[in-house]
């Protein structure tokens, strides 16, 4: 296949994609004369309209997306997003609202935000919800800031946050950004938090625990109440990473597990598009104790009216411009209202069923390290294929030849050569069967012709990329001189 040139390489002097009529009114003076304006950008591509359109259309065809096929990228919950959500969110009444509009004029929008908060509080069993965080990791950071604010208020500031080795990778980073030292808690042989290790490390220097439940192995932390008890007994708080809530909707509530804080990913669990950088939304749920610290303003009801409440003396302040990603919230609300309680429960049951269907059909040929039952995702490994010199990367790359997106590779780190697989509930039996068949065929190929895998992918637009070189010697932007080399 011919490589699509960069837009800089199509560029030709004097070509342009617009033509303006000549100025037919007298120009008195240049109004922008004392504003520093950039007249020319060195090397800016000069292309015609048709060239721009064809360039980006061709590039878009090399893309792979959930609208095209199966996407079992573990931990990311790449489910199909119903188009009705988009339709609702793209109404001009929503997109056209100015965020500074006085609240009496935008009661409908406030109702959407408040309603979503109330529904998410119901789903999670938490006292209050903030819709401000832009995405999951932003929610984690906010959660850490709330713990810090609360403990400092109590005159009991702390230094350390405990994080299990099966937690999401963003957790340590969020705690670190908030100024905490991170200490890792080991998994036991069932792939759950080791209670003994937790007890030994929980002390009066520890601000709290960040736990992902179900964890990245897809395993439900069935000792969660005990875990909360251990942390609470020493004055710590439990933060639950709720990115895997897709396994729990309508079945159990984090509030009932006694966690203090949870974030949700609307752009995973509540079905709004993601990948490629957003926009996301990472609402945070908290207990009554932490509610006064939530970012301001918060929406309050007064009779039938809604208003922004800025009078929040204990609030940590704003963490984002305006009130969160409003249009993402609309999509999530549409999704929740269409499905209702029974529908949401069916989502999680379907996600767990599909994942276990895949696990049962593959675990004879792909190792599953922990024998504990799994929920919405499961982590295979390349252990049985490694003897033939085939790694998880080779398996993942070969899957692309079967028109399937690969699972998440090499994470979580507690499983060597991991292939973290999350089919989600939106996949049909037919698509699951096709994936299983592809995985079984790849195992066969590993036995018969391992080179086929090591050189994969063969079919997609781009072949095997040199990931090492890309990391060691990254080319971050096009430069004129690189044209010649």
């Amino acid at each position: 296949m011919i490589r699509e040139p960069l837009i800089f390489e199509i560029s030709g002097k004097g070509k342009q994609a617009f033509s303006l009529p000549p100025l037919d009114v007298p120009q008195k003076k240049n109004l922008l004369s004392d504003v520093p304006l950039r007249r020319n950008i060195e090397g800016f591509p000069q292309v015609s309209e048709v060239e721009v359109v064809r360039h980006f259309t061709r590039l878009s065809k090399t893309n792979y997306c959930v609208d095209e096929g199966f996407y079992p990228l573990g931990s990311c919950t790449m489910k199909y997003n119903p188009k009705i959500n988009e339709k609702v969110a793209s109404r001009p009444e929503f997109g056209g609202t100015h965020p500074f509009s006085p609240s009496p004029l935008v009661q409908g929008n406030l109702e959407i935000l408040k309603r979503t908060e109330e529904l998410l509080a119901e789903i999670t069993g938490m006292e209050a919800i903030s819709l401000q965080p832009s995405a999951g990791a932003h929610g984690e950071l906010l959660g850490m800031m709330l713990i810090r604010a609360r403990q400092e208020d109590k005159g009991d500031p702390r230094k350390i946050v405990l994080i299990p080795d099966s937690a999401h990778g963003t957790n340590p980073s969020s705690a670190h950004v908030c100024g905490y030292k991170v200490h890792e808690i080991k998994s036991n042989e069932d792939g759950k938090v080791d209670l003994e290790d937790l007890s030994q490390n929980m002390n009066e220097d520890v601000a709290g625990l960040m736990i992902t439940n179900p964890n990245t192995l897809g395993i439900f932390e069935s000792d969660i109440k005990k875990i909360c008890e251990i942390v609470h007994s020493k004055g710590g708080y439990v933060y639950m990473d709720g990115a895997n809530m897709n396994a729990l909707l309508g079945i159990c509530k984090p509030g009932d597990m006694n966690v203090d804080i949870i974030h949700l990913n609307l752009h995973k669990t509540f079905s709004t598009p993601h990948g490629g950088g957003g926009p996301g939304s990472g609402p945070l749920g908290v207990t009554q104790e932490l509610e006064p610290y939530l970012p301001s303003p918060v929406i309050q009801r007064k009779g039938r009216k809604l208003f922004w409440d800025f009078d929040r003396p204990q609030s940590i302040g704003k963490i984002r411009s305006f009130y969160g990603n409003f249009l993402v919230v609309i999509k999530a609300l549409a999704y929740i209202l269409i499905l209702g309680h029974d529908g949401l429960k069916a989502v999680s049951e379907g996600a767990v069923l599909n994942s276990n269907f895949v696990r049962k059909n593959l675990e004879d040929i792909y190792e599953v390290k922990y024998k504990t039952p799994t929920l919405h995702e499961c982590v295979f490994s390349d252990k049985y294929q490694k003897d033939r010199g085939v790694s998880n990367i080779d398996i993942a790359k070969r899957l692309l030849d079967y028109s399937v997106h690969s699972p998440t590779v090499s994470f979580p780190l507690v499983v060597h050569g991991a292939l973290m697989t999350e089919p989600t509930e939106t996949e049909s039996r037919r698509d699951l069967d096709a994936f299983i068949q592809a995985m079984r065929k790849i195992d066969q190929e590993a036995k018969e012709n391992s080179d086929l895998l090591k050189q994969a992918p063969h079919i997609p637009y781009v072949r095997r990329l040199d990931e090492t070189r890309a990391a060691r010697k990254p080319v971050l932007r096009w430069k004129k001189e690189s044209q010649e080399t």
Partner: protein
Amino acid sequence: MYPEEYYYSKDHEWIKVENGEGTVGITDFAQKQLGDVVYVETPKKGTQLAFHQSLGVIESVKAVSDVYAPVSGEVVAVNEKLEESPELVNEDPHGKGWIIRIKLKDKSELDKLMSVSDYEKFTQSQEE
């Protein structure tokens, strides 16, 4: 394949001790597990390290991992070549891929580490 005179830690660091100073790196087993190393974050000269304190970070195409001080002491030298050539950790983990040199505070800490034969047994148990 593992040098006889080195000491080894459970976190797969090695230390070679000469005249009260120890050269520290990660083992061949560790570099194989990590895959191609793309970045090594080293401490500054003069940093005081406690026993088992994180001394830096190794980033590979697969993972980001802490490197722990096998003994306590002061960092007296840092392998500056790793900044330009992190691949040295893969190519020569027990030699040119060294990470820091440390002035030992307490020689008895070496007793907590493994000999080469114990380490070889340890890595075999890890592979299962």
